[in-house]
């Protein structure tokens, strides 16, 4: 390989000097094509290569050889439109991504809605609103569905056949529960000191008012659109 390089270097100079000299050997032409493709910001056509290589070179052949050389490697030469460019092998695309994890807290509305679903499942939207005393925004339910902690259960066999909501396996997994029945009851909560004597922060208003403290959800919107009617 070292010998080759040395020969190539002198050949390159010869090639660049003018058309009177024989073209550099194919291995050297491949080196040239390799360097040009690597440094190019855009895909390079065979015509471009021909214009840049010393006279007498055969860029198409050099390119074909180079493509074979890169077969099965971490990068390969791809044809893009009329040109050619180096691209990362498709199976390694996962290396080109880094994942950042955002830790976020659930909104109060989401935690409350989730708690009601967990304790009362299967539960309808109207029942959730009755317990919370405020309307449940679509965004809140969408978010819980998107997180895969809540899913839509069977429809209730009552007038209007409302959809019900239940918690998922993922929910049980996240909260370390074997089943929703493992959730402690009210008296246990009191015994555990969880019922602090602090009055609730939010308005005590009993009339149902639109819940504005969580942003409208995205993504799972299709599901929700399908399921809920707006007032």
């Amino acid at each position: 390989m070292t010998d080759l390089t040395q020969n190539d270097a002198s050949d390159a100079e010869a090639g660049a000097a003018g058309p009177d000299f024989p073209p550099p050997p194919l291995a050297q032409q491949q080196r040239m094509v390799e360097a040009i493709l690597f440094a190019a910001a855009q895909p390079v056509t065979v015509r471009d290569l021909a214009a840049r290589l010393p006279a007498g070179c055969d860029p198409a052949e050099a390119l074909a050889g180079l493509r074979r050389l890169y077969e099965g490697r971490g990068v390969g030469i791809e044809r893009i439109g009329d040109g050619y460019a180096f691209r990362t092998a498709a199976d390694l695309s996962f290396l080109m991504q880094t994942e950042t994890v955002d830790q976020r807290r659930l909104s109060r509305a989401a935690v409350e809605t989730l708690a009601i679903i967990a304790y009362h499942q299967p539960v309808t939207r109207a029942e959730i609103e009755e317990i919370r005393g405020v309307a449940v925004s679509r965004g809140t339910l969408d978010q819980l569905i998107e997180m895969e902690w809540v899913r839509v259960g069977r429809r209730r066999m009552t007038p209007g056949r409302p959809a019900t909501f239940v918690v998922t396996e993922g929910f049980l997994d996240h909260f370390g529960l074997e089943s929703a029945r493992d959730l402690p009851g009210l008296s246990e909560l009191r015994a555990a000191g969880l019922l602090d004597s602090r009055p609730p922060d939010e308005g005590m208003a009993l009339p149902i008012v639109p819940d504005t403290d969580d942003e409208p959800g995205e993504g799972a919107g299709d599901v929700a659109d399908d399921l809920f009617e707006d007032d």
Partner: protein
Amino acid sequence: MARTSAQMPHLRPLPDPPGEAGDVAQRRADEALIVDVDGYEGPLDLLLTLARTQKVDLMKISVLHLAEQYLAFVEQARKLRIELAADYLVMAAWLAFLKSRLLLPPDPEAEGPSAEDMAAHLAFQLERLDAMRQAAARLMARDRLGISRFARGAPEAVTRRRRTEWQAGLIDLMRAYARLKTRDEFRPYAFDRQDVFTMEQALDRMRRMIGFAGDWVELSDFLPEGWDGGGDGGGARRRSATAATFAASLELARQGRLEIRQSDTFAPISFRRKPSADQ
């Protein structure tokens, strides 16, 4: 001084250039230097150029001769009415001083560095500057990125995927549920405003506390924790608690359960249980 100046190359005068022709060439060169004075990066740069005209290794430069060359240069510039920048004149003064010290026998009384040390340091500086110039030239002649070597022309950016991990524990869930289910147990009009201590709260607190206050207790001692100005309480909370407690004390006094005492205007207010209230 163990060494004579002849042993130190930077002090040895160079032999005069032979013949008239040399003189003329030298004078032309000097004039060319002067006309080109703007092209120099300061007096040290000029000194380096002058030193090169000595056609010896910089290690063997004659600083005495160099000083003379420089002074001749300044003299020539003056003749040609070329205004030299201040730093060139400062350098001329310094070199004139150095020259005189190099020529005179050393004064044993003199303080500071010897003329030889000064000359050696100047020679060192010239050599070092010259070395740095050569290093810079070698550096710029390397296979530079974007000139001889190239980076990937179409780098593939690493995409950043964001994944959100929700933080919610079972305890949050149970608290939320408990909050919802026990809401009705609270007074309907209690509103939680962080920095307001209500009169009801103050009354409630005083009713419980006054039972123990057989002796005079100051109002400030009745303020609940977190409202007494310490910690995050702040002034607003203390004011609110003070006002509520005072109002509550008036109510309790009206009911005949409490005595209030203040020795002077703005003096601390104290309370005690009204002795008769026991019966």
